[in-house]
């Protein structure tokens, strides 16, 4: 037992070391850690009451300056402070909503792919039904029925992404399930659930990681499209997607209103994907050079 634990730990150490040697992945990790830190210490970087929500109409729509690094928005609020604080919400929304769809969609897809036949048919048809319902309709309904708050927004985005994860995981599982190591696990009497989660899924990580990292991007952008119809984070709280959408009207006069939150999203996505690629390479011994 303890030997196995040691083995596991040493594998984790090995994966970590491989990751350490991947410069791009490290860049991604550093950026993410920096973002996470700035989100955690947002209050230290910029005070909420005096910087984030305090309005000054006479200073509205100003370009970047020494006083306001990223300029000011339509209420004269400091965009830098709002991006720092908005990162809290955006990162949480992105990560949690993707976790929801990964957990639900991934499990359903794995069962569908593993058992095949009728189970597959039922699960995937249900997923088809969900896929056919426009995500905006789901979002509007969930938010309208349960109320406009962050949890419901995450739930809405997570639910609408679920079928995609189910499909991708199912396809990956189908590709792996007939391989020998699965047969051998079955031969020694491992339970089906254990086979799925301990043997098959770890070998399907590549497409799952790629899909997850990309989905965080679309989740954050989804908050922007929900903001268009007013269903995202409520004023005066800052959130990147909402900042993007409210800046849209000022695109030609004050592009910094959309540029900086847009950049924040791009940098986050880039970092997530660099790390995701690195993780995939580190997890997948076949891709090791």
């Amino acid at each position, binding site marked *: 037992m303890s030997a196995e634990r040691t083995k596991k730990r040493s594998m984790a150490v090995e994966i970590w070391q491989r990751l350490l040697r991947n410069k791009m992945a490290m860049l991604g990790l550093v950026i993410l850690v920096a973002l996470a830190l700035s989100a955690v210490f947002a209050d230290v970087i910029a005070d909420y009451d005096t910087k984030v929500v305090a309005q000054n109409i006479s200073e509205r729509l100003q370009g970047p300056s020494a006083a306001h690094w990223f300029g000011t928005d339509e209420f004269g609020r400091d965009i830098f402070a709002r991006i720092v604080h908005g990162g809290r919400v955006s990162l949480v929304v992105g990560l949690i909503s993707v976790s929801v769809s990964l957990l639900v969609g991934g499990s359903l897809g794995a069962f569908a792919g593993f058992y095949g036949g009728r189970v597959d048919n039922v699960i995937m048809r249900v997923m088809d039904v969900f896929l056919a319902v426009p995500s905006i309709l789901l979002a509007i309904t969930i938010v309208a029925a349960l109320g406009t708050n962050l949890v419901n927004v995450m739930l809405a985005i997570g639910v609408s992404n679920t079928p995609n994860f189910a499909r991708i995981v199912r396809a990956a599982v189908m590709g792996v399930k007939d391989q020998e190591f699965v047969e051998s696990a079955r031969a020694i009497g491992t339970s089906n659930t254990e086979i799925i989660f301990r043997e098959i899924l770890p070998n399907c990580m590549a497409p799952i990681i790629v899909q997850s990292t990309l989905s965080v991007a679309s989740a954050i952008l989804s908050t922007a499209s929900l903001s268009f119809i*007013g*269903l995202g984070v409520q004023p005066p709280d800052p959130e990147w997607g909402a900042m993007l959408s409210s800046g849209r009207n000022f695109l030609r006069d004050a592009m910094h209103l959309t540029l900086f939150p847009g950049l924040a999203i791009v940098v986050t996505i880039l970092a997530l994907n660099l790390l995701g690629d690195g993780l995939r390479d580190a997890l997948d011994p076949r891709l090791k050079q």
Partner: protein
Amino acid sequence: MRKLVSVLIAGAMCVSLLTACGGSSGPSSSGGADSGAAAEGSGAGSAQAVGSSMINIGIKADLTSLDPHNHNDTISAYATRHIYNNLVKLMPDNTFAGNLAESWEFKDDVTVEFTLKEGIKFHNGETLTSEDVKFSLERQKESPKVGHLVSMIDSVEVVDDTHFIIHMNTPSNALISSLNHSGCAIMCKSYVEGLEAEGKTVEDAPMGCGPYKFEEWNPGASFTLVKFDDYFDPETAAQNDGLVFKVIPEESARTIALETGELDMVIDLNTTDANRVRDNASLALDECDSTHVEYLALNVEKAPFDNKLVRQALNYAVKKDDIVIAAIDGEGDPFHNYIGTAAIGYYDTAVDYEYNPDKAKELLAEAGYADGFTFNCYLAGEIRARSATIIQANLAELGITMNIEQMEASTFYERTGKGEHDSCIAGWVANAEPDNTYRPLFISANAGAGGNRSFYKNPEVDKLVDDAAVNRDPAAVQKDYETILQTVSDDAIWVPLYTKKGLVARNKDLQGFVISPISMHDFYGVHY
């Protein structure tokens, strides 16, 4: 080879990104580009004038119906008001003149006799008769969408081809103004009956006696009207060959299309773009005071807004100047009245609470809310969210927490209709009939879903509204409305926020356009 392709792709992307940024990198460079662009645009405009003079008009949404009895929205009315004609028309001085009707006369409180103009032709060549009017008004009464406008009509009695009598079931001052509404368009009886006998609908081939004939409709994209050559009235006959209404939902894209010359006019210009149009030498901006009022409705049934002092305190606490800037880019005025200045039925008797946070604090203390309180504010739409954000910050200074809850418009209607809100932000654009404003907004019966989102119930006001609707003495009507405005503003059931200007942008060379304060613009006079 492969390398080359990749370099080319990367290069192309960089170039496109660079040009994109270059186009908007700074005010000076983009200003330069604009004026160059606009010069070309006017060139395009005059080129059109030489050939066929179709006027391209940018609108933000598509029409819903070409049957005047099947819609009640401004955009569909752009089409139906030009295809069909009404018995009366609204003049710039807010009086009504005959349109298809030569004249009318109140025989008593519930009987009105009309005389039609002679020899008016429908687009199919038939002549308009009293039978057509009777048919149209009766058809309208059946309509769930616009039937309520003529609910006071009991029957239409045809006297002869050009004479008919409208019998009302109750005295009403709203009859004539309602007949001006796009829902009261006059259709051709034989044509509609023939169409319906074939299993078709008016939607398929609308036909009336208006200055334009229907040409085509591309759902979601555009609809086109062309000039009707046998139109009866030279004064309101088309001065152009036709109108093309183009649907461009995105605000900035609509302005850009005007700058590039793809459009000749933009209705309901985005306030952000107003200065851009003013600064553009080849464009012109038509502005007018409107009948619009934007307001924060306080639900008087919910504490603490059941306390008049608290409601008045809020009226003192909100900095309307900031809202005008943040919500509509200064394209309007801070407002204290309950009906738009340009509206029929506007009187300057409302109490003006000037911005005075100290006074607000006093009143709150007097009401027992010195430490503030928490309430919610329902709203739909981005502009209202901006207003709310300012109000929220103003009230925060008094220790009041306002939680904004944005929702879909349909959700908003339902939830505010049921009175779930403490407060909500709404707007009102008055039309030509004051009763259509006072009745939904202020009477008890309309509390909630009927339009009175303050749930204000004052029998005194109810009585005044009813009297104004039927009293034939204009002075008494005016007194009624003045009293109502004075009462509701003193009760402070709203915090009126601002009134937005009417804005229509057009090519500078385009002439003959008269902007309408109630957004019922006529386009027949427009020409290069």
